Structures are given as structure tokens and as C-alpha cells.
């Protein structure tokens, strides 16, 4: 993936832009934190990055809402995420670039030719495949045709957001456009899924940084997501986890439990089955994340999150999957008592919540209650 040696190194670019060594060490310290590396590793990372060269990046958008690009370029300038633009050469992005029409298409062709076999292809949005792919066309070509063409010369593909990673909302039942995930359409190409609706800006930046620093696709989980960011469930890293272990749950959005910041499991929190970095990296410069703000996790980083029943119903325990394995592993530790009590209480909690719902369904109720349960 090494770009031509005529390109300046990242270190030379930083010097040219007046970014001091201490500024860069600060940035690397923050990135090491994101990548779950020991803080001391920031020094080695800084040295390695300064000697590396920027990869060419071609960015394509298909069935999407542009939220992922908004996250990618979030405008709290100049922030850690903006620093990423010193690490990559963004050679084509039809939303951001000044050129349009034939000029834009020509720019993409030139970037692909100059960096064939080496560029990183970033894709946001799903690809419609029904009816010959007519539901997304640009410059007289279908999305599938453009993707297939651009994927040929890519060293790796980053599927940015849940739509590109798993189909997302366009793929939701009944999926009228035949929307599909990127990984299903580019056989033989390494794909990195950076899921989330949208993905966390720091996770996007961290994924690129990992690729630039090591020159290879990072370790991935079973959904092709970087394991370093998607290795833990929201539930396992949630600061409200102790309340779950103690069986203390908010039952409604305005009860004593909600006011005390207790676990939101009964209100439908998908934290136990959702793997993402929200609980540690958080959002908006680490101000908060949904659970800290009192709302259950929707599970937006997981496949088919839109079709998994109500956002406000507790997860059926049969779906716990990886989270259940974690609980089993915990059984061998001294903390097992508390954890297993938590699981038991959690199951009991589901039963109680279901009873409440059936009671509501039997009894006449207001429209707002209906919406809450739906």
C-alpha cells in the first residue's frame, strides 16, 4: 500500500503545516487511548507515523443520509478528527470537492490510475441491487457499477456506517430496492466495516490511523469490524453496569430509577448485544453517550438493528449471544456471584417487563403508551 516515494512523509507535511512535535505527541496520546494501546505507545506511534506516507483515499456515497460524512468531517475544528487529514490524501469525495459533473468523474479516474492497487476506497451507504440497480444512478451508471469499478484497484475498502457495513436502513424490511452491504458485493477484497449510525468520529479516525501506522487491515471481529473498537459490548463497558449487577432498573423514563441513573435494560437498552465504543469514547468531544443521557442504546452498530423489534422492549435473552459468553467467562472469577445475580435479575426483569406489556395490551391505554411499547 506504500504510496510513491516522491510524496512527502507525514512528518514533513506536519513540519510544513507548522504542527510541532509536542502537538503531534498530544494527538498520538489521544489516538493511543482510542486504540486501547498503553499511553507509553504514543511515542512509538508518533515516530512511525512521521516516517509514513499518506495513502490516497477515494470516497463514494450511495444509499445514505450523509450522517457518516458529517461524522467524518465533524466541525469542532481543529480537533483530533481533523488531524486525520494530515494522515490521508482525500483525492475524491463528490460531496466535499469543488468539482462537479464530468470534471469530478475525471478527477476520480485520475486518482485511481495514479494510485492503482494502493488507494483506500471508503464507501458510505448501501448498494441497491433490485431491478438492475436503477435505484441509485450517477453520471449514467448504477451504484453497483461504480463500486465494482472503483473496488478493482483498491488496496482495501472501508465500509463507513451501518448502511455500508450491513445494509442499514435501506436494507430494512421490506427492502424495496434490494439494498446490500458492501462486503457482499466486492468478492476477494479486504473490507473493514466501521458500523454505527453514524460511526463515532474518533473510531473513524482511529481506523484510518491504524491502517496508516501498520500498513495493513487491522484485526477484525466476526462482522469485519476493527476488534479494538468493537471488541466489547456497550453493556460490559457501561458505567451503569453496577446497577444491572445489583438488579436496579429504571422501569419508565420518569420513575425513581431513571432519576437515580439506574440500568436502562428494562426500557429496551440494546447494550448487551451491541458492540461499539460509545461507552468509553462517547460523543461530542466525550461529553456523553445515549445511556449517560438517560436513553437506552438502540444497537445501531449491529446488523439489522432496525428490524429487531421495538427499541423500547427488553432484549429476549435468547439473543444475548456474545454477551452471554462474557457472563459465562465471568463465572470463573470472584465477581461471578454479582454478575450471575445480575443475569438472573436481568432475566427476571424481562419477564416482569413482558408482564407489564401484556397487562397494558389487555387494558385500554392511551396513544402515548401504545407508541412507547411499539
Amino acid at each position, binding site marked *: 500500500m506504500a504510496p510513491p516515494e516522491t510524496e512527502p512523509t507525514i512528518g514533513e507535511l506536519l513540519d510544513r503545516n507548522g504542527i510541532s512535535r509536542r502537538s503531534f505527541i*498530544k494527538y498520538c*496520546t489521544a489516538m493511543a487511548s482510542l486504540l486501547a494501546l*498503553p*499511553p*507509553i505507545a504514543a511515542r512509538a506511534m508518533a515516530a512511525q507515523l512521521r516516517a509514513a506516507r499518506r495513502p490516497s483515499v477515494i470516497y463514494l456515497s450511495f444509499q445514505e443520509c450523509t450522517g457518516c460524512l458529517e461524522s467524518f468531517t465533524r466541525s469542532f475544528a481543529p480537533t483530533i478528527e481533523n488531524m486525520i487529514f494530515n494522515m490521508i490524501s482525500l483525492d475524491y469525495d463528490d460531496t466535499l470537492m469543488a468539482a462537479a459533473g464530468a470534471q469530478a468523474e475525471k478527477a476520480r479516474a485520475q486518482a485511481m490510475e495514479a494510485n492503482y492497487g494502493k488507494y483506500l476506497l471508503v464507501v458510505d451507504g448501501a448498494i441497491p441491487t433490485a431491478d438492475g440497480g436503477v435505484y441509485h444512478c450517477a453520471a449514467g451508471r448504477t451504484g453497483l457499477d461504480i463500486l465494482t469499478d472503483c473496488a478493482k484497484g483498491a488496496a482495501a475498502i472501508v465500509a463507513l456506517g451501518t448502511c455500508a457495513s450491513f445494509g442499514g436502513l435501506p436494507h430494512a424490511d421490506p427492502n424495496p430496492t434490494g439494498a446490500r452491504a458492501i462486503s457482499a458485493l466486492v468478492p476477494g477484497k479486504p473490507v473493514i466495516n466501521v458500523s454505527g449510525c453514524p460511526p463515532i468520529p474518533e473510531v473513524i479516525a482511529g481506523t484510518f490511523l491504524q491502517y496508516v501506522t501498520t500498513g495493513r487491515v487491522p484485526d477484525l471481529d466476526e462482522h469485519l469490524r476493527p476488534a479494538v473498537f468493537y471488541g466489547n459490548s456497550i453493556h460490559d463497558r457501561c*458505567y451503569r453496569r453496577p446497577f444491572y449487577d445489583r438488579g436496579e432498573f429504571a422501569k419508565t423514563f420518569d420513575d425513581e430509577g431513571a432519576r437515580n441513573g439506574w440500568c436502562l435494560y428494562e426500557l429496551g437498552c440494546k447494550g448487551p448485544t451491541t458492540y461499539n465504543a460509545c461507552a468509553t469514547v462517547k460523543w461530542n*468531544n466525550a461529553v456523553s453517550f445515549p445511556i449517560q443521557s438517560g436513553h437506552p442504546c438502540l444497537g445501531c452498530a449491529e446488523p439489522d438493528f432496525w428490524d429487531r423489534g421495538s427499541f423500547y422492549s427488553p432484549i429476549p435473552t435468547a439473543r444475548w449471544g456474545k454477551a452471554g459468553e462474557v457472563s459465562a467467562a465471568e463465572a470463573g472469577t470472584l465477581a461471578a456471584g454479582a454478575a450471575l445475580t445480575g443475569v438472573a435479575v436481568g432475566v427476571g426483569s424481562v419477564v416482569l417487563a413482558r408482564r407489564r406489556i401484556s397487562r397494558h395490551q389487555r387494558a385500554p391505554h392511551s396513544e402515548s403508551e401504545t407508541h412507547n411499547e411499539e
Partner: protein
Amino acid sequence: MRTLGGIPIHVEPTGSPETAGALGAGLGAILSELATLLEALRRSGAEGAIDLRSLPLGPDDLDRLQRILGTGEVDIRIEANGESRIRETAVGGLWWTEHRDAAGALLAVLIEVARVPNILSPADEDLALGAARLRADAAAQCAEFGESPHGTT
């Protein structure tokens, strides 16, 4: 208001001691690790650090940890594309370090375990560049006043 940091959010400590105990359970582990790192620093000179943003801490846990570690005598401010503040804690060798970007947003919070925090020392390349610059400045001065770069003879 340019950043979210400008929104006056105030974290109320949770009232019941029972609740506070549940959320603060990780603080003991952090203190033990810091003690281990300090012993390693004394024994072998190995520096260490704990990244506080990667830990699942409650909203007021950081404040509690800061209160426990206390405040030392040294307070350093670095201006490098945003402010960094490094404060010695009341425990010698433990430095509470906060890095911010140019807009004031927090990038990293860590406790460094070192005799002097690493970021303060200039790198070898900076020393070489500095020496070269001073040599050039000295030569320019001498050329202006007709002196030898090694002093008047």
C-alpha cells in the same frame, strides 16, 4: 458559544453513599495500579501511565480520583496547538495530565508516572535543529558586526 464545553453542565454527585460506592468501585483498582507503577519507576526507572478516558468511569469518578490524589507543588502549562496542563499530584511522581485541542476540547486525560513528564523534554531532532539555528544566527550576527563566530580576537 463555539464548543459544547461552553454548556454549563454540572455533575451532581449521587446522593446515597450506597450508590456512590457502586459507581466508584473501579477507583481502588486504579490506585493499586498507580502504586505498582510508582514502585516500578523507583526500581527500574520504567515510566508508566494510566489512560483515564479508556476506563468505564462514572460521571463524578474523575473528580473523586482527583480529590484522593490531591494537588502537588508543580503546575505546568504547554501551548502546542491547544493547551496541555500537567499538574503534580500530592503523590510525588504522579502527574495529572490533560491535553486539549485549539478549541479547548479535551483530547486525553491520563495520570503519568514519571520523574519528569516525557512531553517536556525536547527530542534529539529538536536539539539538532536548535543548535543549527543558533549557529546560523551567530554567523549572521558576526557578519553584521565583523566578528569571528568564535569570539573577538
